[in-house]
């Protein structure tokens, strides 16, 4: 029985601590996943297959002692002399049953079943969704077994169509479509599980040396010609097979003889930033004066021709293995037991056709990994056993799978971003790097916090660069979102298929993120001189403006709060004067509240309310509260609202002002309004102005009341 690591161990507990302890030489930015798939080590009764498409390991437990025969898989690839380091595939002899255990990284529940033992298994793979199992036992045919409920359970077989051809392998391109690759071409079949038969959809003759399949992009790459360096890609999609344009890999030196010169071990296929690339590990050749091996990236577009686009300089020689994790190309180097990473989106040296990249970070080992100890079997050895990294028994699969055959583990490789922060000192480049990573948000925010506080406080120009990079990404998302909304709104009338809603990645760091995690904390702490605090806030606002992003009110509030705390009212005044702090009702109200400590805030606030043009009621209230009754009345008349205002409100204010003449004027104004609107100067009971009429009569006498004019 195989053992699962204890659940919930996202990080191998010992491993993390150890990693820190060794961080003296710098953090390890690569790690093996904490919950690997564990399988019984390869041994004479046991063989393991890896299915790239489903990322499953398949263990076949052989119940009769098997005979060893020569299938092989390999991992470490060295320059001049390819060394096969691993030979652990065992065959099955007839006359028994084979137990199969299928485990994957994603699906935690292993599938177990038995199948008839009909001979050595060369290749075994489930179709997508574990619907149909395909098993290759001979060079001429593939056997199928349905795993769909209520479908025929008997095995069925398909021989390859091409006469005298040998099947090199097969790949599932969907749940019911399969491609056979023979040494003479490829055959594309549809599997009909109910009929227990296959239907040939398409085939193509071509001499094949070896093949490679990238399940992510459904592309099969065939090595053709004698040298093997002409690669022919095919693309599969829902029953169709299309031939993409072939291309030639430039070999480092002209081969002396016409023998196969490009090995599949030196080629990998991976999707990087949504584009398919063929990665070619070009070894250091003594004849050329290159400083070491390099990885050459060929961009393989769906349409058009394949182009050499990037060169990743390894600056070393020896045995390498490739992975692609989080759009980064990871190159493991066995000799030094270190790995390096490359990001093709980072700026490199462009020579007109290709971009040359150096590795982003200094070479580091994968973080030390402890084999978890669990279960009664391990009682004897209490302490966790450190796992041998970069072991010669490692097998690497694309994009991010590492298998240790000798230990019986399957890991996915992970990039850890925290250690990167201290390894990449150029903050602009660091941001470029982080913004492209999947789980970047918290790390980016912590970098922002870090650059604002001692001891690693960044200069303002660095801070500006970082803000600009963040807001560039933020703006891109806002724009995508906006055009999506527009299309959706426009599309409601027409019945076009809806476009995909833009995905908000972690790289979208918006104002509320910055406010909550960085800026408010930073201004609270008050450890920086206020000049710096204000400069940082202004820099962020500048950056938002530069990308035409509407600034949120709480940022302005933060600026105002900081300025007020340091009595920098004149500065605040100037900012408002140039409308750096955009107008809004909340901001105007905030200013009003500052009037007692800074009188000009009153004027600034009124100006702002005026510009908003939706705050006329507020303006009247402000003026009335200052007993500027006449001004309020003139204002409301100026905007034509004087027929609907409450007379009582104005008369109240006029009375409070304790200015009889003012009261008289206001009273008369409303009498005239009454006359104009109703033909009578007296107030209606609904206006509740009785006490004001009484007061008016008291002060000015009854005869002062306006007489109704009659015509």
């Amino acid at each position, binding site marked *: 029985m195989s053992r699962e690591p204890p659940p919930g161990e996202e990080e191998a507990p010992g491993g993390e601590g150890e990693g820190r302890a060794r961080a003296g030489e710098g953090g390890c930015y690569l790690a093996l996943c904490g919950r690997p798939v564990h399988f019984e080590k390869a041994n004479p009764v046991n063989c393991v297959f890896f299915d790239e498409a489903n990322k499953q390991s398949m263990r076949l437990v052989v119940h009769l002692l098997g005979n060893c025969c020569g299938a092989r898989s390999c991992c470490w690839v060295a320059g001049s002399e390819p060394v096969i380091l691993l030979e652990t595939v065992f065959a099955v002899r007839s006359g028994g049953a084979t137990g199969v255990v299928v485990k994957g990284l994603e699906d935690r529940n292993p599938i177990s079943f038995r199948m008839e033992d009909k001979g050595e298994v060369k290749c075994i793979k489930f179709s997508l969704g574990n619907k149909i199992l395909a098993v290759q036992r001979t060079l001429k045919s593939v056997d199928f077994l349905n795993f769909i409920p209520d479908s025929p359970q008997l095995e069925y077989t398909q021989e390859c169509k091409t006469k005298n051809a040998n099947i090199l392998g097969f790949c599932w391109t969907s749940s019911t479509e399969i491609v056979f690759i023979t040494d003479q071409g490829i055959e594309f079949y549809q599997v009909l599980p109910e009929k227990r038969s296959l239907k040939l959809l398409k085939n193509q003759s071509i001499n094949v040396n070896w093949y490679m399949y990238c399940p992510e992009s459904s592309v099969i790459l065939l090595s053709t010609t004698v040298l093997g360096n002409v690669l022919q890609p095919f693309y599969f999609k829902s029953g169709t097979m299309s031939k993409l344009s072939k291309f030639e890999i430039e070999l480092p030196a002209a081969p002396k003889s016409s023998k196969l010169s490009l090995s599949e071990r030196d080629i990998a296929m991976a999707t990087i930033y949504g584009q398919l690339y063929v990665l070619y590990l070009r070894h250091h050749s003594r004849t050329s004066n290159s400083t070491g091996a390099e990885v050459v990236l060929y961009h393989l577009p769906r349409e058009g021709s394949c182009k050499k686009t990037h060169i990743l300089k390894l600056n070393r020689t020896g045995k390498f293995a490739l992975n692609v994790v989080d759009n980064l190309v990871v190159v493991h180097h066995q000799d030094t037991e270190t790995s390096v990473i490359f990001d093709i989106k980072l700026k490199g040296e462009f020579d007109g056709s290709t971009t040359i990249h150096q590795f982003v970070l200094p070479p580091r080992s994968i973080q030390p990994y402890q084999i978890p100890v669990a279960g009664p079997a391990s009682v004897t050895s209490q302490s966790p056993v450190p796992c041998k990294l970069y072991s010669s028994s490692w097998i690497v699969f694309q994009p991010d799978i590492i298998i240790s055959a000798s230990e019986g583990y399957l890991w996915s490789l992970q990039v850890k971003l925290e250690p990167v922060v201290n390894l990449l000192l150029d903050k602009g480049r660091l941001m470029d790097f982080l913004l492209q990573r999947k789980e970047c948000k918290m790390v980016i925010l912590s970098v922002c916090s870090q650059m604002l506080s001692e001891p690693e406080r960044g*200069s*303002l*120009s660095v801070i*500006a660069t970082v803000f600009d990079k963040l807001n560039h990404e933020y703006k891109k998302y806002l724009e995508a979102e906006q055009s999506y909304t527009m299309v959706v709104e426009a599309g409601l009338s027409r019945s076009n298929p809806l476009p995909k809603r833009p995905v908000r990645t972690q790289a979208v760091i918006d104002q509320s993120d910055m406010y909550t995690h960085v800026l408010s904390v930073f201004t609270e702490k008050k450890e920086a001189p206020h*000049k*710096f605090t204000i*400069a940082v806030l*202004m*820099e962020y*606002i*500048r950056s938002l*403006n*530069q990308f035409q992003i509407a600034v949120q009110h709480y940022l302005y509030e933060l600026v105002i709060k900081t300025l007020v705390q340091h009595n920098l009212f*004149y*500065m605040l*005044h*100037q900012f408002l*004067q*140039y*409308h*750096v702090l955009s107008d809004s009702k909340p901001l105007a109200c905030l200013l009003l509240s500052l009037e007692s400590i800074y009188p*000009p805030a*009153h*004027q*600034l606030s*009124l*100006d702002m*309310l*005026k*510009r908003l043009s939706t705050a006329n009621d507020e*303006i009247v209230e402000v003026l009335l509260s200052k007993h*500027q009754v*006449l*001004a309020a009345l*003139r*204002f409301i008349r*100026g905007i034509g609202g004087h027929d609907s205002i409450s007379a009582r409100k104005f008369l109240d204010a006029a009375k409070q002002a304790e200015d009889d003449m003012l009261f008289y004027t206001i009273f008369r104004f409303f009498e005239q309004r009454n006359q104009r609107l109703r033909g009578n100067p007296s107030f209606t009971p609904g206006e509740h102005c009785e006490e004001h009429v009484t007061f008016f009569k008291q002060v000015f006498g009854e005869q002062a009341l306006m007489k109704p004019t009659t015509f």
Partner: protein
Amino acid sequence: MATAAGAGQEKQLAPTLLSFFIYNPKLGPKEGEEEKKILFYHPNEVEKNEKIRNVGLCEAIVQFTRTFSPTKPAKSLHTQKNRQFFHEPEENFWMVMVVRNPIIEKHKDGKPVYEYQEEELLDKVYSSVLQQCYSMYKLFNGTFLKAMEDGGVKVLKERLEKFFHRYLQTLHLQSCDLLDVFCGISFFPLDKMTYLKIQSFINRMEESLNIVKYTAFLYNDQLIWSGLEQDDMRILYKYLTTSLFPRHMEPELAGRDSPIRAEMPGNLQHYGRFLTGPLNLNDPEAKCRFPKIFVNTDDTYEELHLIVYKAMSAAVCFMIDASILPTLEFCRKLDSIVGPQLTMLASDICEQYNINKRISGAEKEPQFKFIYFNHMNLAEKSTIHMRKTPSVSLASVHPDLMKILGDINSDFSRIDEDEEIIVKAMSDYWVVGKKSDQRELYVILNQKNANLIEVNEEVKKLCATQFNNIFFLD
């Protein structure tokens, strides 16, 4: 040939400075020691006894009027021939300025007859001029009291002599008007983004040149940013725009290829140069001496070096603590950091300004003649005054109209309430003054046969176009 013009020919003689003196009655309280009170007297040639007499007279007037108004003693004394202005900027330190009234010289029977125009001068205008004299002195020398503390009467006298000897020559009393009352600041209109870029530039410069304490930024002689407090900026702005900038205008007007330009130090990468401090950075003997200024004299009393650096139309003032002596090395560093960036920024501002001008409907020269002033931020705008020439700003309207403006202003300052005053002046001119909260607006209209309603409408139109973004009551 003046006589040939014949009788009836009038000649106007502008007001001139008769005398200017500073005294402190506490310095010579005893009889016979009166001379000790006098700290500065212009013109110096005046006989000692006359000096003492004039000072004594002022002292007496102030003392006498104090009995009627203990808190507000006399500010000016009107006489037929001249007018005296009193100002006590610091306790017991009195400044007095005597201005001769303007004269109309007439010829009667071949003989010149002088008619003094007693009511022409506006108290507020010349009181403000006198106050500015003090502010300017204080900006470059600190307070009177500070000088006394530094070295007694002797030092104070030296400083006063040194400063006012030159400064009084630059007073152009004949062209003083309402703008001198305001002593405002003209702000450069700018869009938000460019403004933020300037902010960013200033912050980065203050960071790189970490000894800089305050920065001010001007473009086209108009202020964009002041790190100084308002009152200090007000007087510094006056110094920059009426004295320093005009003196350095020539090389810019001369253009790139002129010989003056060619002699200018620096390099081809930028147009930056020092207006104060070293002229030639390549000269190892160059003197890095900057004017000293005094700010925040009410509380922290800071003494600063004033570095003014300019590239094209953009000027930056860097102020650093006086205890730190800027070295030639520092100046070179400043030049290499600020020069290229300021040059870029200046052309950015220029470009943006032109774009904005085009967007806002090719803002033609406004047909309105007006003066606007906001007491809150000291913002001042005038379409009446020509561009400031060295040391003078000339009004383009008749002095009589300017006087009406001054009168309206005096009326406004007496009352707190919002007000509006409309005056019908001679020959189809209307003068309108409006006061709303802390803002004042003066408009001069010239419309044939316009009536009050039409004038009011015109002013409303002006407010709607020029001041629609502020709360300015109609």
